[in-house]
C-alpha cells in the first residue's frame, strides 16, 4: 500500500516531462495511474467487504512512535475508490480543459500529487502519518487553487484556503499528540479499541476541540466555510476534484475515522450535529442566491458537507449508513455537475446560469450527463441520490434528541437541493437557445466522458442498490466501531419517510419557481456568507500585518545600536532570570591563578578600557586586538591550544577586515549624548557582569559527572583521533558542526548580499 500511495508522487514528478513529450496524449497516459489504483483497490473489495482489514507497516521513526503503517478497511476503501475513480475522470478532463495551456503539465503534476496525498490521508493508520498527508493535501490544493497565479484573486483565494486549512491542521496536530498521549499509541487501529479510555481521560475535551477545529476547517464547516466558495478560483477540474469530491471530505473522513474513539458522547454529538445542521441550512440558503455556476455548486457543497457532518455527529446506525451512502452519491453528482459547469464555460463562454438556456440542442451528451446528475441531486427515484436522501431522513429520524427539528432541517435542505439541481442542471439545457453563440458545439470527448461516467454511476447506484451494500456496510461498521448492515433499497414500503421525501421534492419545485424572488430577497442570512466569518478572516489578516509592521518598526529600526541593546537586553533578561531563579553556587574566581595570568588579565582589562576611551578608530581596533590576543594567551596558558590558535587567526582576520573597512568610514566623532553613553555603559557592564557570574556559576554547578573524561578515553578507539577538540567537532558532535557551518554559510551570504546591496544603492543616486 505504501507504493500505491507513493506512486502518485513519483508520477507527479514526471508529469510535466510526459506532457512536454506528448501534449495531446499526456492526460490519457497519466489517467492510467488513477485508473490502475482504482482497479487495484477494487481488487480488495471482496475481502474488505467481508470484514477483513488489510494492513501494512514499516518503521519510520520508531523512537517517536511514527510508523509508515497503512490499513484498508471499508471506510478507507470507500474513500480510496472515490479518490481513484474521480481522479481518473478529472485527469482525463483536465487534458481537454487545459488543452494548449503552457503549464498544463504542471497542473497534472499538482493533481496527481494531490491524489496521492489524499490516498495517504485515508489509508494512514498512524496519526502523525495521517497528519503529514493531511498537510500535503493542503499544500497541493494551495498550488491548484492558485494555478492561475497571475490573477490576484486566485492567489488570495489560494492563500486563504491554505491559512484556514493549515491553521486547522496545526490544531489537529496538537489534538493528535494529545490523543496519542491519552490513547497510549499513535496507531489509529490501537486507539480505536480504547474509546472509553480516551473519553474518560481529562484530555478528552481539549482533544475533541482541537480535532474538531481541524476537521471543520478542512471540510468548510461554519464558521470556517468561507474559504471553499473562494477556492472556486481554481481551474474547474481542480474544483470538481478537491472541492466537491475529495479534499473537503478529508474532514468528514477524519470525523468518521475517529468517531469510535471520540464519538458516542454528548460532548461530540451536540457540537458536531449542530454545526453540521447549521452549515447544511446556511449553505443551501446562500447557494440559492448564487447565479454563477460554480459558486452555486460550491455553496451547495458546503451544505452537503454540513449534512455529512451532522450524520457523523449523530453517530447512530442509520446515520452512519446515511453518511456512507450520501458520500458517494454526492461525489458522483457534484463531481459531474462541476465538470459540466466547466464544459459549458468552455463551450459557451458563459458562467452565469441565468443567462444560458437551450444548450441541450447543441450539447446533447453534456446535457444528458447534467440532467442525470441533477436528478440524483434532487433525490428522484431511481437514482443513488434518492437512496441517499432517504438515508439522510432516516438518519435524522434516529437522532436521540431533537429528531423532529433535524428531520425538518434535512427535508428543507433536500428541497433546496431540488431547486439547485433545477437551476444548475436542468434550466441551462432546456428552452429556447440563449447565451450561446454560433460556435457553441458539443464539448470534445475528454470533456464529456468524465461527467457522463460519474452521472452514470449515480444511475447505476440507484438501480443496483445491493451491489455496493457489503462495502457500505463495512464502511458504516468502521464508523460505528460495531457491525452494522446497510441495506439500501428503492422501495421500503409506503412510510412517512417516503412522504417526507415527496414533500421535499414538491417544496423544491416551489422554491425553484420562486428562485428569482428569493434572490432579490437578500436577507441577513445571505450577507452572512459574504460579510460574516469571511470578514473576520480579512480583519484578522489585516491585524496580523499591522502587528508585524509595528513590531518590525519597533525591533528593526535600522540602528545598529538599538539592535545590540535589544539582543543584549533579551539575553540579560532571560539568562539573568534563570540565574537568579537557580540560586547559583559560584566557584571561587581566582583559584589556582598564577601571577603572570593575573598580569595578562590586567592587560586585557586595560586594553578594553583603552578601546572604549580611544579617540581614533585605528587605536580602538588595535586595543581591541590586544584584548583578543590577551585572551588567546590565557587560552594557551590554560591548556587549550586549539582555541588559542583559532582565536589568534580570528583576531588577525578581524584586523584585516577593519583595515579594509576603515577608510570607508567618516571622520571619528562622538555623536552620542552623555545620557546615551551612560545607558550603553550600564547595558555593557550588566552584560559583562552576567557573563562573569555565568561562567563562575557554570564552573560551580556540577550536578553531573564531567564528560571530558569519556571523550578523552573514547577519542582514539572510537574516532581514531588524538585531538579531542577536533574529534568532538568532526565526529562526536559532527552534526552540530554541520549545522554551524550551514549557519556560517548563510550568514556569510547574507553579509555579502548586504554589502552588494549598498554598492548598488551608491551607484544609483
Amino acid at each position, binding site marked *: 500500500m505504501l507504493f500505491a500511495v507513493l506512486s502518485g508522487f513519483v508520477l507527479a514528478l514526471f508529469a510535466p516531462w510526459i506532457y512536454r513529450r506528448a501534449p495531446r496524449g499526456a492526460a490519457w497516459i497519466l489517467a492510467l495511474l488513477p485508473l490502475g489504483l482504482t482497479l487495484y483497490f477494487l481488487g480488495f473489495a471482496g475481502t474488505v467487504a467481508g470484514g477483513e482489514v488489510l494492513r501494512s507497516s514499516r518503521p519510520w521513526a520508531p523512537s517517536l512512535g511514527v510508523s509508515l503503517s497503512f490499513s484498508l478497511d471499508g471506510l478507507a476503501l470507500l474513500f480510496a475508490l472515490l479518490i481513484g475513480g474521480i481522479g481518473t475522470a478529472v485527469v482525463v478532463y483536465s487534458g481537454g480543459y487545459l488543452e494548449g495551456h503552457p503549464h498544463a503539465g504542471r497542473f497534472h503534476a499538482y493533481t496527481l500529487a494531490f491524489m496521492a496525498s489524499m490516498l495517504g490521508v485515508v489509508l494512514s493508520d498512524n496519526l502523525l502519518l495521517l497528519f503529514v498527508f493531511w498537510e500535503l493535501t493542503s499544500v497541493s490544493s494551495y498550488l491548484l487553487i492558485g494555478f492561475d497565479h497571475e490573477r490576484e484573486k486566485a492567489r488570495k483565494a489560494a492563500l486563504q484556503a491554505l491559512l484556514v486549512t493549515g491553521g486547522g491542521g496545526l490544531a489537529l496536530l496538537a489534538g493528535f499528540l494529545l490523543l496519542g498521549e491519552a490513547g497510549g499509541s499513535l496507531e489509529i487501529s490501537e486507539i480505536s479499541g480504547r474509546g472509553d479510555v480516551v473519553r474518560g481521560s481529562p484530555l478528552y475535551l481539549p482533544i475533541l476541540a482541537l480535532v474538531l477545529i481541524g476537521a471543520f476547517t478542512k471540510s468548510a464547516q461554519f464558521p470556517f466555510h468561507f474559504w471553499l466558495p473562494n477556492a472556486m478560483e481554481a481551474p474547474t477540474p481542480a474544483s470538481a476534484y478537491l472541492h466537491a469530491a475529495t479534499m473537503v471530505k478529508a474532514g468528514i473522513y477524519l470525523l468518521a475515522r475517529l468517531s469510535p474513539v471520540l464519538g458516542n458522547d454528548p460532548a461530540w454529538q451536540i457540537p458536531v450535529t449542530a454545526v453540521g445542521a447549521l452549515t447544511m441550512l446556511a449553505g443551501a440558503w446562500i447557494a440559492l442566491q448564487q447565479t454563477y455556476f460554480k459558486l452555486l455548486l460550491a455553496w451547495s457543497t458546503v451544505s452537503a458537507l454540513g449534512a455529512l457532518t451532522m450524520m457523523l455527529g449523530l453517530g447512530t446506525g442509520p446515520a452512519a449508513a446515511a453518511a456512507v451512502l450520501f458520500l458517494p452519491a454526492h461525489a458522483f453528482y457534484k463531481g459531474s455537475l462541476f465538470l459540466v459547469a466547466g464544459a459549458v464555460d468552455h463551450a459557451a463562454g458563459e458562467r452565469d446560469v441565468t443567462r444560458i438556456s437551450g444548450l441541450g440542442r447543441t450539447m446533447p451528451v453534456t446535457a444528458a450527463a447534467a440532467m442525470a446528475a441533477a436528478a440524483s441531486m434532487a433525490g428522484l427515484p431511481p437514482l443513488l441520490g434518492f437512496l441517499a436522501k432517504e438515508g439522510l431522513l432516516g438518519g435524522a429520524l434516529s437522532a436521540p434528541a431533537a429528531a423532529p427539528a433535524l428531520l425538518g432541517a434535512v427535508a428543507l435542505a433536500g428541497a433546496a437541493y431540488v431547486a439547485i439541481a433545477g437551476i444548475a442542471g436542468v434550466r441551462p439545457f432546456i428552452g429556447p437557445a440563449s447565451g450561446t453563440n454560433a460556435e457553441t458545439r458539443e464539448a470534445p470527448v475528454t470533456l464529456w466522458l468524465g461527467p457522463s461516467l460519474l452521472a452514470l454511476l449515480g444511475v447505476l447506484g440507484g438501480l443496483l442498490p445491493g451491489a455496493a451494500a457489503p462495502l457500505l456496510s463495512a464502511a458504516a461498521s468502521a464508523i460505528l466501531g460495531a457491525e452494522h448492515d446497510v441495506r439500501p433499497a428503492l422501495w421500503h414500503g409506503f412510510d412517512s419517510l417516503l412522504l417526507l421525501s415527496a414533500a421535499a421534492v414538491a417544496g423544491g419545485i416551489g422554491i425553484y419557481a420562486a428562485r428569482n424572488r428569493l434572490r432579490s430577497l437578500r436577507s441577513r442570512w445571505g450577507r452572512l456568507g459574504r460579510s460574516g466569518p469571511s470578514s473576520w478572516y480579512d480583519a484578522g489578516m489585516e491585524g496580523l500585518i499591522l502587528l508585524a509592521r509595528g513590531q518590525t518598526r519597533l525591533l528593526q529600526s535600522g540602528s545598529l545600536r538599538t539592535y545590540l541593546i535589544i539582543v543584549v537586553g533579551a539575553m540579560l533578561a532571560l539568562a539573568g532570570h534563570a540565574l537568579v531563579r537557580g540560586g547559583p553556587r559560584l566557584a571561587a574566581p581566582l583559584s589556582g591563578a598564577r601571577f603572570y595570568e593575573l598580569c595578562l588579565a590586567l592587560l586585557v582589562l586595560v586594553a578594553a578600557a583603552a578601546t572604549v576611551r580611544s579617540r581614533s578608530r585605528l587605536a580602538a581596533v588595535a586595543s581591541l586586538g590586544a584584548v583578543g590576543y590577551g585572551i588567546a594567551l590565557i587560552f594557551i596558558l590554560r591548556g587549550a591550544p586549539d582555541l588559542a590558535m583559532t582565536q589568534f587567526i580570528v583576531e588577525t582576520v578581524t584586523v584585516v577586515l577593519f583595515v579594509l573597512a576603515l577608510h570607508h568610514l567618516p571622520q571619528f566623532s562622538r555623536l552620542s549624548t552623555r545620557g546615551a553613553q551612560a545607558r550603553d555603559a550600564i547595558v555593557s557592564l550588566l552584560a559583562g557582569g552576567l557573563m562573569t557570574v555565568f561562567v563562575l556559576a557554570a564552573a560551580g554547578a556540577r550536578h553531573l559527572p564531567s564528560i571530558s573524561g569519556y571523550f578523552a578515553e573514547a577519542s582514539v578507539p572510537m574516532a581514531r583521533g588524538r585531538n579531542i577538540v577536533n574529534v568532538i567537532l*568532526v565526529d562526536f558532535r559532527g552534526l552540530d558542526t554541520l549545522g554551524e557551518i550551514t549557519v556560517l554559510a548563510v550568514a556569510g551570504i547574507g553579509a555579502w548580499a548586504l554589502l552588494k546591496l549598498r554598492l548598488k544603492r551608491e551607484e544609483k543616486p
Partner: protein
Amino acid sequence: MSSLILRTACRFVFPLLVLFSVFLLVRGHNEPGGGFAGGLVASAAFALVVIAYGPAAARKSLRVRPSTLIGTGLLTAAGSGMPALFRGEPFMTGQWRTLELPASGPVALGSPLLFDVGVYLVVFGVVLNIVLSFAEED
C-alpha cells in the same frame, strides 16, 4: 596599497600560508589544527594578496568564486556523512580505511577528514567572500 616590500613578502609568504593551512587541516585530527583554523589561515593568505595586489588579482589566483567554495564545502561536509548510510549505520558515523603507502607506512583515511575539508572550504569561502566584498567597495 602598492608597497614593493609587501608585494615581495607576499610572494614568499602566500604559498607558505596556503601550505600551512592545508597542514593545519590534515593534522587536525591528532594535533591542534582542523578545518576551521585551516580555512581561516587560507582566507588570511588570500587577504594578504588582496591587500598587496588588489581584489582582482586575488580572484584571479583563486580561479573559482568564493560562493562556489561555500557550496562545495557544505556539500562535502554533508556528503561525508552519507557513506555510513550505505552500511546501515546512522548518518555521519565515521568510516575509516587504512592505506599502505610505500613511503610513509600505513595512513588512516576517514570520512571525518572529508568532513573537515568541508568545514575548511566553507570557512575559507565565507571569510574570503566578505574580505573581497569589502575590498571591492572602492
